[in-house]
C-alpha cells in the first residue's frame, strides 16, 4: 500500500466515520425518545447541534488554565478520530494494520476520557473538577475488566497460531466461536457480556454518566465548555461511540454476509460493509440506546464496586473457561 493510497483510505474512513457517527447519534436519540414515549428530535439533529454550537460564543472561564482548557477538545477529537484507523471496516483490514494493535486502540479509547477530565480540571469550576474526578474513578474501574476481555481473546487466538495475536486484523480474521468447545463458547459469552457492560461506561452514557450528570452537577466536566470547544467534544463523543461499537464487532462478531449468500466481487464487499454498519448500529442500540433508556444513573461508589468486583469476576470467569476449554478440547 503506497502512502498516497493510505492517505486516501484514512481520509475516507475519517470522513465517512464522522458522518456515520453523527447519523448514528441521530438514530440513537430518535429511538431513545420513541422508547420513552416522546416524538424525539429529527435524525439530522446532531448536525443541527454542531451548526448551533458554531454560532455560539466560545467562553473560556476566567478561572481556567486557558491553554489546557482549549487544547483538550482537540486531544479528544484526535484520539477518537485516529482510533478509527486501527479498526477493521467490514471485510477490509484496518487502514493502519501493521502500525498499531488492539493495545493501541485501548489507549486511544482512554485518551478522550483523560482529555475531558483534564479539561474539567483546567476549567477551575467546582462542578468541572468533581466531574473530572468522577471520570478518572470510572476510568480506573472499567479498564481492568476491559483489559481482561482483550487479553483473554488474544491469548486464545495466540494458541491458534494464526499470527500476531494482538493485531485486530488477526482477531477479526479468526472469530473464536467456532474454534472452541462448549466451555469456550460459555467463556466467550461471559467476555461479550463484560464488554457490553463496559461499552456505555467507556462512553460515559447512562447509567454511567456520572462525570456529566446534568441534573446533579450541571454537566460536570463540560459545564464550562461552550461554542466550538463543546462542538469538538461532541464530535469526539460521536466518533468514539462508533469506534467502541466497531471494536466489539471486530472482537466478537466479525462475520460477513456476502460469503454465506454466495455473493463475490465488489458487490459482496459492499454488502459486507453495509452489514458491518448494521452490526455497529446493533451494538450501539443494544449497549447504549436501550441501556440508557432502561436504567437510572448509578452512584460513583456503585460503579467502582460494580466494575472491580462482579464485572471483573465475570471477565475472569470467561478467561478461566477459555483456559479450561483449551485444556479439554486442545
Amino acid at each position, binding site marked *: 500500500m503506497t502512502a498516497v493510497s493510505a492517505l486516501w483510505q*484514512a481520509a475516507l474512513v*475519517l470522513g465517512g466515520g464522522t458522518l456515520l457517527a453523527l447519523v448514528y447519534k441521530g438514530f440513537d436519540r430518535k429511538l431513545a425518545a420513541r422508547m420513552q414515549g416522546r416524538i424525539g428530535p429529527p435524525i439530522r439533529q446532531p448536525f443541527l447541534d454542531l451548526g448551533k454550537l*458554531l*454560532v*455560539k*460564543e*466560545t*467562553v*473560556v*472561564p*476566567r*478561572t481556567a488554565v486557558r491553554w489546557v482548557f482549549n487544547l483538550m*477538545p*482537540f486531544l479528544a*477529537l*484526535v484520539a477518537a*478520530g*485516529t482510533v478509527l*484507523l486501527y479498526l477493521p471496516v467490514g471485510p477490509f483490514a484496518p487502514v*493502519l494494520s*501493521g*502500525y*498499531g*494493535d488492539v*493495545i*493501541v486502540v485501548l489507549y486511544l479509547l482512554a485518551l478522550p476520557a483523560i482529555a475531558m477530565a483534564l479539561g474539567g480540571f483546567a476549567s477551575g*469550576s*467546582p*462542578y*468541572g*473538577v*468533581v466531574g473530572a*474526578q*468522577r471520570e478518572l*474513578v470510572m476510568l*480506573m474501574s472499567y479498564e481492568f475488566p476491559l483489559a481482561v476481555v482483550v487479553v483473554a481473546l488474544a491469548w486464545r487466538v*495466540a494458541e491458534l497460531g494464526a499470527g*500476531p*495475536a*494482538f*493485531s485486530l486484523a488477526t482477531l477479526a480474521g479468526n472469530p473464536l466461536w467456532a474454534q472452541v468447545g462448549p466451555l469456550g463458547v460459555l467463556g466467550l459469552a461471559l467476555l461479550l457480556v463484560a464488554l457490553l457492560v463496559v461499552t456505555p461506561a467507556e462512553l460515559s452514557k447512562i447509567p454511567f454518566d456520572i462525570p456529566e450528570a446534568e441534573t446533579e452537577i*450541571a454537566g460536570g466536566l463540560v*459545564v*464550562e465548555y461552550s*461554542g*466550538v*470547544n463543546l*462542538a*469538538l467534544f461532541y*464530535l469526539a463523543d460521536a466518533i468514539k461511540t462508533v469506534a467502541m461499537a466497531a471494536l466489539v464487532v471486530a472482537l466478537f462478531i466479525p462475520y460477513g454476509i456476502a460469503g454465506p449468500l454466495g455473493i463475490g466481487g465488489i458487490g459482496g464487499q459492499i454488502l459486507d460493509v453495509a452489514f458491518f454498519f448494521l452490526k455497529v448500529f446493533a451494538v450501539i442500540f443494544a449497549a447504549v440506546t436501550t441501556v440508557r433508556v432502561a436504567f437510572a444513573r448509578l*452512584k*460513583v*461508589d*456503585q*460503579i*467502582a*464496586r*460494580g466494575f*472491580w*468486583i462482579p464485572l471483573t469476576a465475570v471477565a475472569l470467569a470467561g478467561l478461566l473457561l477459555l483456559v479450561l476449554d483449551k485444556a479439554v478440547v486442545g
Partner: protein
Amino acid sequence: MRLVTGQGYWSPLVWLALAAGVAFFGWLFWRLGRRTYKAGTDQDAPFLSGEAAPERAHVGGQHLYWGFLQGLRPTLEALRVFHSGFLGDYVTWTVVVVAVALLVVMLT
C-alpha cells in the same frame, strides 16, 4: 520506526503524523466557530447554579479517590489488616508470594 513485539506492533510516528492531520482538520473546524465573548463580565465567571462564587471555590485533590474508596471499602479494609507496619511481615509476604509464583511457573 515500528515497535514489533511478535504478538503486536505500534508505530508512534505514523500515529503522530495522522494525529497532526486530524488536528489540522479539527483546527479548520474550530476556525469556523465564534470565538469572541465578553471577557471580564459575569459571562466568564464559573457556573455555580446562580450562587455567588466564593473567594476560593476549590475542590481538593484528596477527594479524587472518594468514590473508589467508598465503593471498595470492605475490600480495602480487609487489605489494611495485612499492613502491620512491621518490616518482617512485608519480607515474609514477599517471600511467600515469590515462592507461590515460582511454584506456579514450574508446574505450568
